[in-house]
């Protein structure tokens, strides 16, 4: 027992050394025009020592850990549930008035990801279609507003429905040819489409501003009143002037947050209805067995397209809002890694689980922000956490609780 343990630990230590040496142990430095190696054996040693100790202790730790149960939600009745939802909403609406600007700002971002996560959840979680190009629709939404503003001076509120519609249309048109493909082929084609959309945005420089995108996009107005220090047009009235308040940029931040919250809640409500409707059942059935569905007369193409289109639409809304919040859209915001992040939210939350997706979205946006101090290690940790979460909790934070219709038996 101990022997095999030791052998295992030694093996792990050797591997650690081999892994650490080329990246940390032999540090490359510039010396004049040449590159030289500066050994840092201390680091290698500590890494090896750490791995050795952990590996030796692992059998002990392993036993402990496996006994740690994951907290599960207590069952709640329908009315309790309503109460909880209302309470959560109340808190969500009121806290920004007491919180700091930074926190509200991050929360707004989190809400955008909630919206995106719930949108992708329809496609991946409900309908089981692996979409790696979701960010493409997000981009379409963002650029729809950006371009409409830039070329036609549209306001956010005018552009928002169109952004959703444009993304949905894209989803529909792209979905049409590609949804025949299965599993991973679908994944890679959607990835391809996502990239193509981004590359077009980069290269249609005359239209889209190329890599730099479109900037100075205005924030949403409150019933036509701008939340800005000075009106953008001579003679306009701004929100604070109208209310007779001192200008405070915090107003804008809170307003944006509340809007994001409203959009996220709307998304939640719709997707929550969808999964209970016949279409939701059809998605689920299709995910389980397409052939059986066909034999029952369900048209897989139509059903998949509906999921794809709806998901895209939510991405479009999210995109338009993102453009308004950032004040700038550029292709860099819509790289594949963004798709991966949204997908990670869905999987981490527990595919199909809406509450899980919400929690995961908040975690994934807030955690890296909390780790700002460790800026260098931030992304390293982020990747690591993604792996560990998958290893420890493959079913997601809150695995989907299927919604049943029950009958008396």
């Amino acid at each position: 027992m101990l022997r095999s343990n030791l052998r295992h630990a030694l093996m792990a230590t050797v591997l650690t050394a081999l892994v650490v040496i080329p990246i940390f142990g032999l540090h490359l430095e510039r010396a004049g025009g040449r590159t030289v190696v500066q050994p840092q054996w201390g680091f290698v040693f500590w890494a090896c020592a750490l791995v050795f100790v952990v590996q030796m202790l692992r059998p002990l730790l392993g036993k402990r850990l496996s006994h740690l149960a994951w907290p599960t939600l207590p069952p709640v009745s329908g009315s309790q549930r309503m109460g909880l939802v209302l309470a959560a909403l109340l808190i969500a609406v009121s806290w920004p008035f007491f919180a700091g600007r930074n926190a509200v700002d991050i929360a707004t971002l989190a809400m955008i990801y909630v919206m995106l996560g719930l949108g992708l959840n329809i496609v991946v979680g409900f309908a089981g279609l692996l979409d790696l190009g979701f960010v493409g629709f997000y981009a379409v939404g963002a650029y729809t507003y950006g371009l409409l503003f830039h070329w036609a001076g549209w306001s956010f509120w005018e552009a928002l429905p169109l952004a959703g519609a444009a993304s949905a249309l894209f989803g529909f048109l792209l979905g049409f040819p590609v949804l025949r493909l299965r599993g991973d082929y679908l994944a890679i084609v959607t990835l391809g489409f996502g990239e193509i959309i981004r590359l077009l945005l980069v290269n249609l420089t005359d239209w889209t501003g190329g890599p730099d995108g479109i900037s100075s996009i205005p924030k949403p107005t409150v019933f036509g009143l701008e939340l800005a220090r000075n009106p953008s047009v001579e003679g306009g009235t701004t929100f604070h002037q109208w209310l007779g308040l001192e200008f405070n940029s915090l107003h804008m931040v809170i307003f944006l947050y509340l809007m994001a919250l409203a959009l996220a809640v709307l998304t939640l409500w719709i997707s929550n209805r969808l999964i209970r409707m016949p279409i939701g059942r059809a998605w689920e059935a299709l995910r389980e067995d397409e052939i059986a569905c066909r034999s029952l007369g369900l048209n897989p193409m139509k059903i998949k397209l509906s999921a794809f289109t709806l998901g895209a639409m939510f991405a479009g809304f999210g995109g338009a809002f993102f453009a308004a919040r950032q004040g700038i859209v550029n292709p860099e915001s819509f790289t594949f890694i963004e798709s991966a992040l949204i997908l990670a939210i869905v999987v981490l939350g527990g595919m199909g689980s809406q509450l899980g997706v919400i929690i995961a979205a908040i975690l994934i946006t807030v955690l890296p922000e909390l780790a700002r101090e460790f800026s260098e290690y931030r992304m390293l940790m982020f990747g690591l956490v993604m792996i560990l979460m998958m290893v420890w909790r493959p079913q997601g934070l809150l695995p989907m609780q299927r919604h049943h219709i029950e009958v008396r038996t």
Partner: protein
Amino acid sequence: MSELLPQLIQQLFNGLSLGAIYALIAIGYTMVYGIIGMINFAHGEIYMIGAYAGLVTLSVIGTQSGLPVAVVIGLMLLVSALLTGVYGFVVEQVAYKPVRHGPRLVALISAIGMSIFLQNWVALGQGARDMAVPSLIPGAMRFGTEGGFEIYIPYSRVLIIVVAVALMIALTLYIKHSRMGRASRACSQDMHMANLLGIDTNRVISFTFILGAMLAAVGGVLIALAVGKLNPFIGFLVGIKAFTAAVLGGIGSIPGAMLGGLLLGVAETFAAAYISSEYKDIVAFGLLVLILLFRPTGLLGKPEVEKV
């Protein structure tokens, strides 16, 4: 007008040398996919680590060591392949093995996490900035008339093609005839059944990851020598391209990966040459979409038969 042909040849060569790299990396994707049905998103990072390992080796030896260039390059390839192979092994053990029996998306997310991790791992260890790689093999073969368009075939790129082709032939033979190769074939069909035939599936999987990583390392070293610059983020784009190549050729098929890689390299180069380099990536992905629409399982992929 007589210059059109040499220009075409030059571009073809450019495309093939780029494609050879894609192919080397695509093989890693395809093998892993073939066996455990997962898209190893961190494979591009493995390639990047291979390039770094090569540069570290070179820097340890020193550019003025007096050793013959061939020996230096040989050492770089060898050491990098070994170290990167270890990476392949460790990555599988840490991030994929524990989730192998879960839903496939879980493995995919784990792989994406691994990809982010490795990028920043190298960024922390070796710095996020560009590293320059000295050109060890200057010079080029030259064809054509003085004064007209001369075809330049840089030796560094000749090396890419020669090594890549040699490795691919060796690999194909190996998979076909060795016992390990046959075991991988069985595993890629039905892992569980292969296990019931007495095949050690864990070993086959590790072997696959190691081999794929080694090929990627060779690609990394060769391309670093040829183009002269690397940073911790080069793996990502190349990885996506190589993956695209693998799918283009029919994922799971090794000859498909080679074909896909070369095709993608040439298509990209020609797009840059005859349309505009602004559109080369669009052409690459457009090609992918088109081919999949008409051949839903890639060029050499077996059509999916679902027997109802």
